[in-house]
């Protein structure tokens, strides 16, 4: 992650806030109004009480006291407007910031996503922006409150310095006490929170593994363990309560002590005006009440600054952004011939994944890539999709380097069907249209027919309008596979990649889906990553990889005759998968 200089940070903040100039202007007016009424009220009351003491005209007395009452009501509206304006600005700010961050993150290349945990990205974009917004809201309100504090303090100074000193002597003490107590609280709460986290983890684990516990008859032991952990949280909460609830009494005591000091000092002044003392008692409450808020603001400022920094840092990295190359070649009319020339690639420098790899896949052919886990099969596919860059050598499609193509058009013509199918929440139709937003309903049905999906869709009450749960959990694995095949077919790509996707299907579904696959690979260049013999024997050519190097290539028969690595694999492992049934071999 990149470090953000403070200047950039404020600059970026201003970009999000600059449309709010009018609102910010209103806000400053309201804040000033708030200071004025807060100070003016008590002063007006003092005038009324002074007049009362010298038996002034009753009309004047009532006039000034009514003005004080009026200030009280104005104060309510000033504070209300202040909070409302802050809420409006804040909600727009959070939205802009969030969408900008999201868009920027989404435009990163796959390397970025490989290195990031999606939960963490969500936490940055959603939680941090929310954290920022709510602390910004509180901060702005505290900030406005701070002006009242300053206004009151200056007024007091102008009226009587000695009484001002008496009134404010405990303010810094309270301020420091609150900050220190918060620090202590945070430290102690952390221990408590970690205990709670342990309980939650245990609770979640038990509930997701109930059938295991039940089949092994372990409920009672589970409960004993849980009970122990659960009691631990109660024990931790004892120390926490002692720390957390000390703040309130200390605040109360110091506030009251402030008044006592003020009154005591007043007794030392000869002929003190009682209305002056009362004015100071009234004003003093404006000083003490916001102190804990202001003390907390320092913390909030730190938290929100950190949240903002985190947010900006995931947006700041331009190195990982994808380059579309808008003026590049359009891949719509390609035939689909693929060539890898002397390719070398490593994810982490020094750890070679592919080395000096060269091979050709003729247009319209089906090729099986085989090799142990880590041999580099998926890497080849990812490089072809331009999910990663930074290799040496060349990847050619129709004799043009893939870097010369417009990225969007290239990806549009390569469809990738993975083993783990990812479907988005929304209807089945939404998921299909993702591949081709302008497809007609007829096209969609044709694609579904071709992959044999119509039969199961007819059993769903809402058909293609069925709403999928998170990750399509309301469909079976095989059904999700069929949807993803139809999606690939709808995209009508020249090049198709099947990443060993029948491996997780049961026999029954696999048999069904074979037909759909045959339809799909017709007239396309297909690359199949295979662990199963059934898939391998259906290909035109087999490429055997070993530690990132090309080990052998050829047809099944050629490679068996050659008696090399493939024949070794075949005899040791693959033949094990078939028992004594004879396989149909593609001519």
């Amino acid at each position: 992650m990149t470090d953000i200089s403070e200047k950039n940070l404020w600059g970026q903040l201003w970009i999000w806030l600059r449309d709010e100039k009018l609102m910010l202007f209103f806000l400053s007016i309201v804040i000033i109004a708030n200071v004025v009424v807060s100070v003016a009220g008590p002063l007006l009351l003092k005038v009324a009480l002074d007049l009362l003491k010298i038996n002034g005209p009753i009309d004047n007395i009532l006039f000034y006291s009514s003005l004080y009452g009026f200030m009280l009501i104005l104060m309510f509206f000033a504070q209300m407007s202040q909070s409302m304006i802050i809420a409006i600005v804040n909600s727009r700010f959070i939205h802009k910031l969030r969408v900008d961050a999201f868009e920027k993150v989404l435009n990163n290349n796959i390397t970025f996503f490989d290195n990031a945990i999606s939960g963490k990205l969500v936490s940055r974009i959603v939680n941090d922006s929310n954290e920022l917004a709510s602390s910004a809201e509180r901060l702005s309100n505290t900030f406005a409150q701070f002006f009242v504090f300053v206004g009151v303090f200056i007024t007091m100074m102008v009226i009587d310095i000695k009484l001002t000193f008496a009134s404010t002597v405990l303010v810094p003490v309270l301020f420091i006490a609150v900050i220190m107590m918060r620090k202590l609280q945070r430290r102690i709460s952390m221990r408590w929170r970690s205990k709670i986290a342990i309980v939650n983890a245990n609770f979640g684990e038990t509930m997701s593994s109930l059938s295991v516990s039940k089949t092994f008859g372990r409920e009672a032991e589970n409960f004993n363990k849980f009970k122990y952990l659960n009691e631990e949280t109660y024990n931790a909460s004892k120390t926490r309560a002692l720390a957390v609830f000390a703040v309130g009494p200390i605040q109360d005591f110091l506030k009251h002590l402030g008044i006592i000091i003020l009154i005591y000092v007043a007794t030392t002044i000869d002929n003190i005006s009682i209305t002056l003392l009362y004015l100071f008692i009234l004003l003093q409450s404006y000083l003490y009440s916001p102190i804990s808020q202001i003390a907390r603001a320092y913390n909030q400022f730190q938290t929100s600054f950190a949240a903002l920094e985190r947010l900006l840092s995931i947006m700041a990295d331009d190195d990982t952004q994808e380059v579309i190359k808008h003026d590049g070649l359009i891949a719509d009319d390609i035939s689909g011939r693929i060539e890898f020339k002397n390719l070398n690639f490593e994810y982490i420098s020094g750890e070679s994944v592919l080395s000096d790899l060269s091979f050709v896949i003729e247009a319209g052919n089906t090729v099986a890539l085989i090799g142990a886990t880590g041999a580099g099969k998926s890497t080849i596919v990812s490089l072809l999709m331009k999910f990663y860059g930074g290799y040496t050598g060349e990847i050619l499609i129709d004799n043009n380097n893939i870097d010369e193509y417009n990225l969007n058009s290239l990806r549009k013509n390569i469809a990738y069907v993975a083993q783990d199918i990812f479907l988005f929440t929304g209807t089945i139709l939404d998921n299909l249209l993702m591949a081709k937003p302008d497809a007609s309903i007829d096209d969609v049905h044709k694609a579904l027919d071709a992959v044999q999906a119509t039969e199961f869709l007819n059993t769903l009450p809402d058909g293609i309008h069925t709403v999928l749960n998170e990750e399509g959990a309301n469909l079976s694995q095989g059904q999700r596979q069929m949807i993803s095949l139809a999606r690939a077919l709808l995209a009508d790509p020249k090049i198709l990649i099947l990443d060993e996707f029948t491996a997780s299907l049961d026999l029954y579904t696999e048999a069904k889906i074979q037909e759909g696959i045959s339809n799909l690979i017709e007239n396309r260049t297909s690359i199949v990553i295979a662990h199963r013999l059934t898939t391998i024997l259906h290909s035109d050519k087999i490429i055997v990889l070993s530690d990132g190097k090309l080990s052998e290539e050829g047809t099944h028969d050629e490679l068996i005759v050659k008696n090399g690595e493939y024949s070794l694999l075949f005899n040791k492992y693959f033949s094990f998968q078939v028992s004594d049934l004879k396989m149909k071999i593609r001519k």
Partner: protein
Amino acid sequence: MKNKEIKWIVSYLNRYPILFFITVVGSVIEIILFSSPNLIIGKIIDLFVTNAAISEIIDWIIYLLILVTVQAIVFYIVAVINELHAHRVTTDMTADLYQALQFRPLHYHDGIKIGDLMARATGDTRAINIGLSPAIRILIQIATLLVTSLAVFIYINWKLSILLFVSFPIYVILVYYYGKKLGPESIALREVFGELSVNSHELFRGINELKSYNAEKIGVDKFSQISEKHAGHVRKFGMLSAFYPPSLLINIVLALTVVYGVYLISINDLSLGEFVVFIGLITLIQFMSRRIKRIVNMTVRMIAAAQRLQEMMEDDIPHLKFGNKEFTGIEESIEFKNVFFRYSDDREWALKDINLEIKKGETIAIVGGPGSGKSTFIKLLLRLYDPQQGEILINGTKIGEYDSNTLRSQISSIEQEIFLFSDTVSGNIAFGRPDATMDEIIDAAKMAKADKFIQSFNEGYDTLVGERGITLSGGQKQRIAIARALIIDPSVLIMDDASSALDAETEYQIQSAIKTVLKTRTSVIITHRLSIISDSDKVIVFDNNSIVANGPHHEILRTSLEYRKLFEHTYELPELEVSK
């Protein structure tokens, strides 16, 4: 309507009567102490006005000092006791919830998401905690403050107290309506926020799909839409919080009290000190009143949380009944006779007319498509459910007559989605037999072909797995699960073979492990691995919730059209024989 929830919470509070008593009585005393300094300040002001002796004023200052010291101490004690009481109660609730859920039969859990359970256990108990401490304490204090202030006002000057008396019911009504409006809004705000997290999480997880179909724009639009919806709720909630009518009412009451009070002073019906007491107490009410907003919100959440928790803990689900016959293993056979089963009355049969006999020592392979009933069949065999019709007999005795402990220690299962606990490898293997020795654990691992890769870990059998430990591959997990089942040396082994993608070598390892294990005992396996199927004694083919073929592989391959369908695309099959 809310009575039930409140009664439920009180029943928990009553478990600790002393803490409960201190909380309630202490809160009342504390707020009285908190409001009393006003009376003394009023007294002191009057002493100043009448030019009393300084020494007398100093006396009152000392009383004031004592009072505020006592108040701070009482405040601290009450708040801590209140918090401990709340924690004690919610800790109990969490344990009770855990226990209630754990002992529910599985069909209750089928319809419930883990995420929801977690929200109950974490969010709802916390909501109750906050609702009890400080929300309830502060509610008690506000009520006490209103009542005692009213009493003080009437005592000092009844005319001035009329205003407060009149505004009191209006105040309560305003607070009530405000709470009613704010409550749903705060719930909506949280829900939309959840939507936002879920949505962005999903878009990131599907990043490969988004990129390969050039659908980034669709993703951003989707996110932007929900983000805007959330921002709208943030705004609405902020506006609603800013306009708090009860506060306006109190400001108006304060304003009128000042004007009328000043008038009363001018006609000598009120002293300045008494005036100060009035203003002080109303300011105090205003201060407490600002907190009501949050307190009302907390209370509403507590009631909602209590309702959900209580519903979840209410026990109206029939449990499975076990008999007390000891189960010592398969002597003869397991038999299904005309078994019908469905998960609930409003659903279709998940199994229809199942008839089957599994003899001692046999290996049965089960095949069938998704939703064909094969997994349900296994659940009945494990007696996680009871069939609605027909019966399941083991050694000629109904399965329900055996006691649960011996039954479960003799029938072991390996699930399709393997769940390993956050524990060491050896802890996971010994899950069903915590007293197993290290040698036994290693033997089981060896049989499951897991020993080699476990030894390759730095900490071997002490390696932590699960959420906080290392991540295992699907093949490794499966082999640990096989060892876990083997260590209890069950008489019957049931396995739902995971169909994850494994490289050819791992696949080979697992197949040989499974084959070794199956040979030694009565076993039932759902699998797609052809070599295991052809080695088994009998294959049972499920389709459409019934058994459509039943017999040895080579036999039904010739006789069953359904079975042939599975292979005809890939293999050359023997001639079809018309059944006898």
